């Protein structure tokens, strides 16, 4: 929605045509060449590192162009009553649920259950999870981005996230220093709860999908109540 007065003001300030922006294609080509050389070097030394390098760059580009931001996904429902990114996150959880179910099913058919070897993070859950999530949430909102968002913005050319990255290093170092305290007090007493040990993997996947779909419906309802809802092309479905 654009009003005529805004259009007039933009035309007055920026002139009839767009301001002549400096082309950045030459920089892009140089960086692409450097990235390709690094991936070739990594491929010669270790195939896995080259795969990490390429997947990392691809993920960064997707994050940049989709403006997908985990901090924003968790902050916007409270700040501006918008659950668009939260719903995207829930959809990605659904996709990864099915993906990991397939991978773990293949693994469990051939191997015994060993928490350290099962694909995916199988860790003890307890009070420490909630405390850590709360502290991380405060830091994430204040810094304006989580780990992936900060790295993406450094790549985008911002300087401020470098300071956030420094904070990350300090925080993880302090966390490693105090790990024994948390381990003795909480983590050693917490249990690993791996569902396929108790019930069929298929049932677990169905229950998890049902919960995620329920949360998605809740988020969509919250958005409808407070504004409008769009389809993937931006057409307004409900106002």
């Amino acid at each position: 929605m654009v009003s005529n007065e805004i259009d007039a003001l933009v035309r007055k300030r920026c002139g009839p045509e767009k301001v002549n922006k400096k082309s950045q294609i030459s920089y892009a080509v140089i960086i692409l060449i450097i990235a390709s050389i690094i991936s070739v070097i990594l491929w010669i030394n270790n195939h896995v590192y080259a795969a990490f390098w390429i997947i990392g760059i691809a993920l960064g580009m997707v994050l940049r162009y989709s403006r997908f931001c985990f901090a924003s996904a968790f902050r916007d429902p409270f700040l501006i009553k918008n659950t668009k990114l939260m719903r995207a996150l829930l959809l990605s959880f659904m996709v990864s649920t099915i993906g990991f179910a397939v991978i773990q099913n293949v693994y469990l058919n051939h191997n015994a259950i060993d928490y350290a070897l099962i694909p995916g993070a199988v860790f003890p859950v307890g009070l420490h999870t909630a405390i850590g999530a709360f502290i991380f949430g405060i830091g994430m909102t204040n810094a304006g981005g989580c780990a992936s968002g900060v790295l993406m913005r450094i790549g985008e050319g911002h300087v401020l996230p470098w300071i956030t990255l420094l904070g990350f290093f300090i925080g993880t170092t302090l966390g490693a220093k105090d790990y024994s305290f948390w381990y003795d007090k909480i983590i050693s007493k917490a249990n690993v709860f791996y569902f396929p040990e108790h019930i069929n993997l298929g049932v677990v996947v169905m229950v998890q999908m049902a919960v995620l779909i329920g949360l998605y419906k809740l988020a969509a309802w919250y958005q409808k109540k407070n504004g409008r809802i769009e389809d993937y092309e931006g057409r307004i479905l409900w106002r």
Partner: protein
Amino acid sequence: MEVRDLDCLYEPCPIPLIKAIKELKTLNSGDILVVHSDQSCVGAVIVEWAEQNNYPVKLVETNVGEWEVYIQKP
């Protein structure tokens, strides 16, 4: 019709949006607020908020990595 500029350069998301919402409260109907920002996410999040709340809005990239968001109070 008053035009007010809001300098939000170097401010990370979501501070420009909170500042813009505060500033819009002090404006009269028909006035235009111009938010200056150097973060790509800021433009996206302000446009999202403005459309959700039925404010006329336009996002202009004035230079490489610099954006101006025009919001009119309805």
